[in-house]
């Protein structure tokens, strides 16, 4: 029982090598391949998840930027609208003031013209009255044309003096 048999030793070594080759290929090789594939898969998933997160963060910052830009734009539009409205309002006011001023001027001019006309009428009548009174005073009919001219000259002098 304690004798070393060369044939058994050789057989066992060959058997072991065959078993090693077989198990290495079909048992450990396959299982290790699966383990590595799973590791790779997990690593890829983690990487893609991280990439997705980074991208989401980037998009978020982009949107925030856009949002703040839009806000600024809205404020600008509002300000523009406000200044425009202010200008329109000012224009309207100015037009209205202009119109009222013109109307008033026209009215004043008309009033002045009427006054002038009335004054002229009054002066004619006063002249007639004066001629009438003077002719009565003089007892004779004054020559209409020359006397009236004289009276009117007198009256206008008097009017200017008055």
């Amino acid at each position, binding site marked *: *029982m304690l004798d070393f*048999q060369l*044939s058994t030793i050789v057989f*066992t070594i060959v058997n072991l090598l065959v*078993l090693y080759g077989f*198990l290495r290929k079909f048992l450990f090789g*396959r299982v290790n391949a699966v383990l590595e594939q799973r590791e790779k898969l997990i690593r890829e998933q983690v990487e893609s998840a991280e990439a997705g997160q980074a991208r989401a963060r980037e998009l978020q910052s982009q949107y925030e930027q856009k949002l703040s830009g839009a806000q600024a734009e809205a404020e600008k539009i509002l300000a523009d609208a406000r200044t425009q409205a202010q200008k329109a309002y000012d224009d309207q006011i100015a037009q209205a003031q202009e119109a009222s001023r013109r109307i008033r001027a026209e009215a004043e001019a008309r009033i002045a013209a009427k006054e002038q006309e009335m004054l002229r009428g009054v002066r004619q009548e006063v002249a007639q009255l004066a001629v009438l009174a003077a002719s009565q005073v003089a007892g004779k009919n004054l020559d209409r044309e020359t006397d009236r001219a004289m009276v009117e000259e007198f009256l206008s002098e008097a009017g200017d003096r008055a």
Partner: protein
Amino acid sequence: MEALKEALMGALENHVAFTIPVLGGIPVADAVVVTWIVMAVWMILALALTRRLSVRSPGRVQTALEAAVAFLNGFARDTIGPHWRSFAPYLGTVALYIGLSNLIGIFGLTPPTKDISVTAALAVMSLVLIYGAQFRYNGLLGGLKKFAEPMPLLLPINLMEVAIRPMALCMRLFGNIVGAFIIMELIKFLVPAVVPAVLSIYFDLFDGLIQMAVFVFLTALFTGEGIKDAA
């Protein structure tokens, strides 16, 4: 007493199963035949268990298989160091082979590890592995320098270890299995029923697995000792 001795002698003898009639007859021992059975069992199991491996949805068998291989890989990484990858399959193969060889006594076959030639072959393989790795990863000079570590004074002891380590591996495995075998035979001789079955759980199952672990562990440890700090 003489009858017991005769029975023991008969049981301990390494029978020749048959002889290949070439080169003047090559004897094929029982151990070799049982080794073939062990190999066939593991090969069929390996093929059957790894038939449908899936990366995404492993079944229960695959999960167990992966856990076992991952354990083996972790053990190899811890003991051997950075070059563990090429050694893990060999360690696993030896573990499976010795494990089933030690346990096969339960099924009524003679364990191959009871034949000292088989354990000698295993020890020779370990020897080649240990010193082959030492020279493979350290270079010729570096491998030689390893014999003078940790100090040159220990050179003779380190050289003696080259012979002692495989001897010890061989004898440890053989002695344990034969010892358990002899004790089992004695018990069977004294009490043929019940008691041998109970004790067989300790001597065949527990001791067999422990010796398997020890053999693989020592091989890995010696291998790692030589190449752990190699680049």
